[in-house]
């Protein structure tokens, strides 16, 4: 009898739960004991009172015993509950595993969905974290700041003039040091080997501001900086690659034809700005007046102890005010912007990285909603199982736990696959975007990323499981047993429909974002640039200063190079300019003869005679340059149409005179000579498709030979440009082996400029595609389920003579409501959210009706196709077979 009761108890899990119950049990046991004692004593002939007193005495310390018993009882109870729970979890995991094996299709789909969405989320986080969230890899990085010039209307410029910097440097009381820097590429010779190198000119305590660590050696001394000594610091990479780690070579470095000494080697981890190979003391112009407006340098500083960014900002603004009152010429001296260096470095990337982080969260949500929805649909058979379990006494919490665990199991396995996939995805992203992503070299997958991946995994598992868990555990047996058969049109599926609606809404938001970027991109690539992209080779060359000190030698170099290049078979035109489109470009302040306008500006280029033809800029009026334009003859210039329209609207500019007051002047010297305009040429978007066509003027390099020491040769070929590069290289070596070049093609340079946009567009479209695919699968499974559930109804209708089109309509109607409501919600969300990406759009409103309409139609078509399959299946039902199956 007892063992039977025990089994019964165990089945029902009737164990005392609360403290009160435990106490009651303990008291009951002791009372029973005392009662038996009393009986014993009474049997010996004691009076009832006597027997009671003896029994209690014999028992001992009642209160203490009671307390102890309750305590051990509860401890034991808790232990066994914990063991039971773990046991149940173990059983649930095994059960979940078995269920997965039972329905391998669904399990594989869930694993793939989890793996993909977790991999996307984790890789996005990995990159965003490394670029935006982590501190810079320098000592005490929070104290590093970037300094900006401020214009009259308060707009910041990321560049500063050396003249202003010197004043900040001397007068500030809030910064431990301020340094200026400017990067570029030059030719460096180690022993006899000439090569191109990425350099940074630095002024001020650059290395101590950054607290750069050296592999060996030392930073520049103050004296070396002041005297422009012939010293360089090189990077660990350059030291290994170009110098073979040979200390003897540190005296054999030649730049501009002069011998330089290497004073130190910077550790690879401490290189700043990124990719710099050689640091040189900067030669900067000083003095008052115009020099204050030559903003060529970036500036960085380190805050002194106990000083905030705001303190430094106030301090430097006060200095700027003093500079302004003493020297009112400065148009960039209206203030100084101080901001954390990290913010300055990542400012451009921040918009799109945050956008991607938000987008990937959407993808994750769609994936979770999708799996949750599939589970609901799959759960018809399951509901009976749940109902039976509930009826047999399983707790609701046990059922919830079981369903949650099933999903967590899938999520964890999926997450592990996803993390492995992340390694690959991050690597691929860096390969594609490494050159345009700030701090790309700092991206690593570490415990922090893994922790977030684990959190994402658990969150995904719970999000997916919670909905079905609550829903399934809430069913009653009666409802299931009674309602499953018979009733026509049964099975409301509001929750499933809501989930699909959410998926559609999220997918539509992503599609809209992707669509807007796509449109911007198309607009950009279709924009006329004003110069040729096809089959144009560029070769950036620096002539070493010493051997080419004579201007005539420089000109001779370019002329003989140009002649040789033009003679190459396959070359249709060749020329050179100091700055060519899709790269850097100098802008000069200009003065127009007879006008008092201050601060007019135009791009200013030194070009060879063949340049305009080689780059593909057409002549619109007047003439271009020829051999008669030389040092002794009239100084002439050719301007572009934009400059003509801006400064001489409705008139011919030919014969007018201008001068390049900043780019041709010497500090504290006389103003430069006038240039007579002799021709008008077409406009170019010098800085790429997403920039405007700006005023520009060209002058023959023979008349401004100062700019002929560093030029880019442009070679227009009739065939594939890349195949001609070796031949061009050979010609270069023959003219002078000490002049290596950075080779590229205009197509490659354009691709590099567009790379981050392209990548962003691809990634966001990829996210949108995944979301749309999942949403389509969601619609498909929702309708398949609905059709399966209404088989009987549909069969009856078909038997009664309903037409196919009616049945089709019936199923479609159900889909239509869900899709339309979801799409409406998605459009509303997109209306609210696309504003955030305004900065990334070109000539497209964030509410662009074409995009909104386009993606909505696209979504509806995809949704319609997803709905068509189950709908067609419904119309093909054979009433007899369907009814017999019941």
């Amino acid at each position, binding site marked *: 009898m*007892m063992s039977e*009761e*025990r089994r019964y*108890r165990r089945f029902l899990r009737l164990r005392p739960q609360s403290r009160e119950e435990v106490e009651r*049990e303990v008291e*009951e*046991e*002791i009372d*029973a*004991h005392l*009662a*038996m*004692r009393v*009986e*014993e004593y009474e049997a010996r002939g004691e009076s009832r009172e006597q027997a009671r007193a003896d029994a209690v005495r*014999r*028992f*001992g*310390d*009642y209160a*203490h*015993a009671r307390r*102890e*018993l309750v305590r*051990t*009882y509860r*401890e*034991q109870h808790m*232990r066994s509950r914990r063991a039971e729970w773990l046991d149940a979890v173990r059983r649930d995991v095994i059960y979940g595993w078995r269920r997965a094996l039972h329905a391998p299709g669904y399990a594989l789909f869930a694993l793939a969905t989890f793996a993909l969405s977790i991999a996307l989320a984790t890789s996005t986080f990995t990159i965003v974290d490394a670029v935006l969230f982590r501190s810079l890899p320098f000592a005490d990085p929070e104290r590093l700041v970037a300094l900006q010039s401020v214009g009259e209307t308060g707009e910041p410029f990321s560049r500063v003039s050396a003249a202003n910097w010197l004043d900040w440097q001397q007068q500030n009381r809030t910064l431990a040091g301020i340094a200026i820097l400017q990067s570029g590429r030059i030719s460096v010779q180690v022993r006899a080997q000439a090569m191109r190198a990425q350099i940074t000119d630095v002024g001020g305590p650059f290395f101590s501001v950054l607290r750069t660590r050296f592999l060996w050696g030392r930073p520049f001394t103050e004296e070396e900086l002041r005297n422009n000594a012939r010293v360089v610091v090189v990077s660990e990479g350059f030291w290994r690659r170009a110098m073979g780690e040979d200390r003897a070579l540190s005296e054999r470095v030649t730049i501009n034809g002069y011998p330089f000494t290497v004073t130190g080697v910077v550790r690879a981890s401490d290189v700043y700005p990124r990719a710099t190979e050689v640091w040189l003391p900067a030669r900067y112009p000083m003095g008052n007046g115009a020099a204050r407006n030559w903003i060529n340098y970036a500036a960085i500083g380190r805050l002194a102890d106990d000083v905030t960014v705001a303190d430094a900002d106030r301090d430097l603004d006060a200095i700027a005010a003093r500079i302004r009152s003493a020297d009112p010429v400065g148009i960039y001296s209206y203030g100084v912007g101080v901001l954390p260096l990290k913010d300055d470095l990542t400012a451009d990337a921040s918009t799109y990285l945050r956008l991607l982080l938000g987008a990937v969260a959407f993808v994750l949500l769609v994936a979770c909603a999708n799996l949750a929805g599939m589970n609901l649909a799959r759960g018809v058979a399951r509901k009976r199982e749940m109902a039976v379990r509930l009826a047999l006494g399983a707790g609701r919490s046990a059922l919830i736990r079981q369903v949650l665990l099933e999903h967590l199991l899938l999520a964890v396995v999926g997450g592990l696959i996803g993390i492995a996939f992340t390694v690959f995805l991050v690597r691929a992203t860096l390969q594609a975007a490494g050159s345009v992503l700030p701090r790309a070299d700092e991206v690593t997958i570490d415990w922090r990323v893994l922790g977030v991946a684990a959190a994402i995994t658990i969150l995904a598992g719970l999000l997916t499981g919670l909905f079905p868990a609550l829903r399934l555990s809430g069913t009653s047996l009666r409802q299931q047993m009674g309602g499953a058969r018979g009733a026509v049109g049964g099975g409301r599926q509001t929750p499933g429909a809501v989930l699909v609606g959410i998926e559609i809404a999220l997918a539509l938001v992503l599609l809209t974002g992707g669509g807007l970027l796509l449109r911007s991109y198309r607009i950009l690539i279709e924009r006329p640039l004003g110069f040729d992209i096809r089959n144009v080779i560029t070769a950036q060359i620096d002539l070493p200063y010493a051997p080419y000190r004579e201007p005539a030698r420089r000109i001779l170099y370019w002329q003989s190079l140009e002649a040789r290049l033009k003679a190459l078979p396959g070359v249709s035109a060749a020329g050179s300019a100091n700055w060519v489109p899709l790269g850097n470009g100098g802008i000069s302040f200009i003065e127009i003869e007879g006008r008092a306008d201050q601060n007019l500006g135009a791009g200013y280029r030194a070009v060879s005679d063949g340049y305009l033809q080689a780059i593909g800029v057409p002549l619109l009026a007047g003439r271009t340059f020829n051999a008669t334009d030389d040092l002794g003859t009239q100084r002439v210039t050719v301007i572009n149409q934009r400059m003509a329209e801006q400064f001489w609207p409705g008139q011919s500019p030919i014969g007018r005179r201008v001068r390049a007051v900043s780019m041709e002047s010497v500090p504290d010297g006389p103003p430069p000579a006038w240039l007579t305009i002799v021709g008008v040429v077409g406009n170019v978007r010098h800085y790429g498709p997403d920039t405007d066509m700006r005023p520009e003027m060209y002058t023959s390099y023979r008349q401004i030979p100062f700019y002929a020491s560093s030029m880019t040769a442009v070679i227009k070929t009739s065939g594939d440009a890349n195949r001609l590069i070796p031949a061009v290289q050979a010609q270069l070596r023959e003219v002078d082996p000490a002049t290596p070049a950075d080779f590229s093609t205009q197509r490659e340079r354009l691709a590099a400029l567009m790379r981050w946009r392209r990548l962003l567009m691809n990634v966001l479209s990829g996210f949108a595609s995944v979301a749309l695919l999942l949403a389509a699968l969601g619609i498909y499974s929702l309708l398949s389920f609905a059709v399966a559930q209404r088989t009987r109804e549909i069969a009856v209708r078909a038997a009664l003579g309903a037409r196919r089109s009616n049945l089709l309509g019936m199923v479609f109607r159900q889909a239509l409501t869900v899709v339309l409501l979801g799409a409406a919600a998605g459009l509303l969300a997109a209306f609210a959210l696309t504003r955030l990406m305004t900065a990334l759009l070109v000539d497209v409103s964030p509410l662009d009706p074409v995009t909104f309409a386009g993606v909505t139609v696209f979504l509806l078509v995809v949704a319609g196709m997803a709905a068509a399959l189950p709908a067609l299946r419904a119309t093909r039902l054979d009433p007899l077979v369907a009814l017999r199956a019941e």
Partner: protein
Amino acid sequence: VDQALPLLKGTLDLLVLKTLSWGAQHGYGIATWLEQHSDGALEVEDSALYQALHRLESRGLIEAEWGVTENNRRARYYRMTAAGRSRLRKETATWLRYTQSVSAILLMSARTV
């Protein structure tokens, strides 16, 4: 009964296990059995007995179930588990070795020293 000996520490658990080796029993039954079979030489305080029972239960050496006595009274019955049985075997062997050693020393006569 007047010269009942206080129990040595640890022996109560052993005795309880031994008692239960004959079959399931409630606390009162165990106390009575112990008293009878020691001819009243061992005095077990009831409260200590119950603490021992719960201690053994929480260690998984015995388990308890509510049952009904011959007199139709609800009482908590304790039975030995497999773990309890093997523990009893081990502890008995240890106890016997221990008491033999102690006895051997206590029974030595002065001459043999």
